[in-house]
């Protein structure tokens, strides 16, 4: 129970940090860039909405800094993020909710695929250490993980969309298609997700392979693995149930850190493919100097990462009771 409370406290601290960064950054910059932005809202917004925005960005607000800060925190907590400039007059929250499913689908699915595939390759690599499998796959993917995500995306567009013409150039579905839950539309979405998805998988898989392989090599030297060999258990059972199950734990606890990297890369992948998720939208917001939208997307991305880590934490406690007991 204490463990759960401590983790929750930590998540609140992280979210609070992200909000505080949002609040103080525009005020810290020379000549507050938000002032220029607010000028573009002039005459468009009514009294109350305008005041909320002024409080959020510190533009000719009357209250003290502390009062502004608390007003901003209160507005964020209840989901009042202001109005988007790019999608005027839509509120930011609505715009973000429209983009979120695309990213959750693309990044969520590819992260899970990369985790399982990477863990599997790392496990088998360590088991067959020095064999052909181990000499080819881990080094190749580890070098690939040092490649820029967005460049892999560009090259895959060049090969599969422009040269071969097999797959679409970008976006999440064919331009003009009606969004519906029909099979043709779902198929269309899947076809559009292939290139961005594969890009994310092949560039993020290296990290999983490396940690899993290293952990597995350590675990394979343990006495209980030797014991299992002496008992004459089948190699597959030793690899998965004895060594693999223990080696996967550090990989799971590393999930939180790695997720940040994956999300970061996915933003650029979305940008290259004009995939209408939160990453693409965030960069659009930056280019349009749409600070309310940008800040909200930053918060939402942080929140999504925190929720994913929370889920992984729960899985880790289930697999390894020591984590809860140790704290």
């Amino acid at each position, binding site marked *: 129970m204490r463990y759960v409370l401590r983790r929750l406290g*930590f998540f609140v*601290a*992280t979210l609070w940090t992200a909000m505080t960064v*949002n609040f103080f950054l*525009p005020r810290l*910059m020379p000549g507050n860039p938000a002032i220029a932005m607010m000028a573009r809202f002039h005459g468009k917004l009514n009294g109350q909405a305008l005041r909320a925005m002024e409080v959020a960005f510190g533009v000719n607000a009357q209250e003290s800094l502390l009062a502004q800060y608390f007003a901003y925190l209160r507005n964020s907590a209840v989901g009042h993020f202001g109005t988007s400039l790019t999608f005027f007059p839509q509120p930011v929250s609505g715009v973000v909710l429209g983009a979120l499913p695309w990213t959750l689908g693309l990044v969520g699915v590819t992260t899970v695929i990369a985790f399982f595939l990477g863990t599997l390759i790392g496990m088998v690599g360590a088991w067959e*250490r*020095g*064999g052909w499998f181990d000499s080819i796959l881990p*080094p190749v993917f*580890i*070098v690939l993980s*040092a*490649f*820029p995500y*967005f*460049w892999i995306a*560009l*090259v895959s*567009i*060049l090969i599969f969309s*422009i040269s071969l013409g097999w797959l679409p150039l970008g976006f999440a579905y064919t331009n003009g298609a009606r969004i519906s839950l029909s099979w043709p539309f779902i198929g269309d979405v899947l076809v559009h997700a292939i290139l961005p998805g594969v890009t994310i998988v092949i560039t993020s898989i290296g*990290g999983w392979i*490396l*940690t899993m392989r*290293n*952990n597995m090599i*350590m675990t*394979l*030297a343990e006495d209980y693995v030797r014991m299992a060999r002496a008992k004459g258990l089948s190699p597959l059972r030793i690899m998965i149930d004895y060594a693999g199950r*223990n080696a996967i*734990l*550090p990989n799971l606890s*590393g999930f*939180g*850190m790695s*997720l*940040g*990297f994956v*999300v*970061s*890369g996915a*933003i*650029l992948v979305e*940008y*290259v493919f004009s995939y209408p998720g939160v990453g693409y939208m*965030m*960069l659009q917001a*930056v*280019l349009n*100097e749409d600070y309310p939208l*940008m800040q909200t*997307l*930053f918060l939402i991305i*942080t929140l999504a*990462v*925190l929720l994913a*880590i929370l889920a992984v934490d729960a899985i880790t406690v289930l697999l390894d009771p*020591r984590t809860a007991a*140790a704290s």
Partner: protein
Amino acid sequence: MSSAPASAPPASNPEAPAARPTRARARFSVPGNLGRAVLSNRKAMAGATLLAIFVVMALVPGLIAPGAPGAELYPPGQGASFAHPLGTTSYGQDIFTQFIWGARASLIIAVVAGLLSTLLSALIGVSAGYLPGATDGILSLITDVFLIIPAFPLVVVIAAYSKGGGNATIIAVLVVTGWAYGARQLRAQVLSLRNRDFLVAAKLRGERTLRIIVSEILPNMTSLLVANFLGASVYAILTAAGLQFVGLGNVNTDSWGTMLYWAQNNEALQAGLPLWAVAPGLGIALLGGAFALLNYAFDEISNPALRPVRGRGARSDS
């Protein structure tokens, strides 16, 4: 990017972390030994060779490709030819010249941001590991928070507000967002060192805390610090390139990220000028790859358990 020392589960095997630092010290205290270790490791050799090529490009770009990289002197949109090995841009610039001159910016960002991040990681990680209770608690909390907040969105937010900043701004942003991972690893290492005899002895001698940290603890973590520097450099290369690619750097500098920005803005791929985008990307990838290969090799050098085994019989007697 993660290296073995932090991921080795200390609970199950208390001997291993304690034994490693002495071995690392013996290996790294003399530069000659380090050199020999790099020479005998194929991955390290490949990484070092690649890096050497880029260093030469960064030091004397004028010798390889004379001329100004930004000059719009040639017929635009040409394919590869003898005069222009990589063709020309839509503005009539020579792509090969731009590629060679671009190495400098990426290398400077990688090395400076890598060094500064490692410094910050060491400062915070070692303090957290060595200082008592409350200090450790606060520093660890800050580290974990910075580790979890997704770095690139944060980088984008900061860069968006401080727009038009040059390399110095980019480096500052990269250091602020890139130190936490290393700090956490270093803290774990210090925790495993803390109760060893030589540190207890130093404390009993009455050494000041700062002196203990600088001259007793840090030298014992050289291999981890090097690994950290390499990891932070890869992060800096990729993130800086990403920022420049979306136009959040200074778009008038000569760098690979900026080349990609202009290539993307002019739809180089669709316009039949793929080399404009392929060349700088390959530069970033190979430079990042060089650091990653060195890092991978360092894992093996500092942790003999991970070295490749020759022949299959070796496994059974481990």
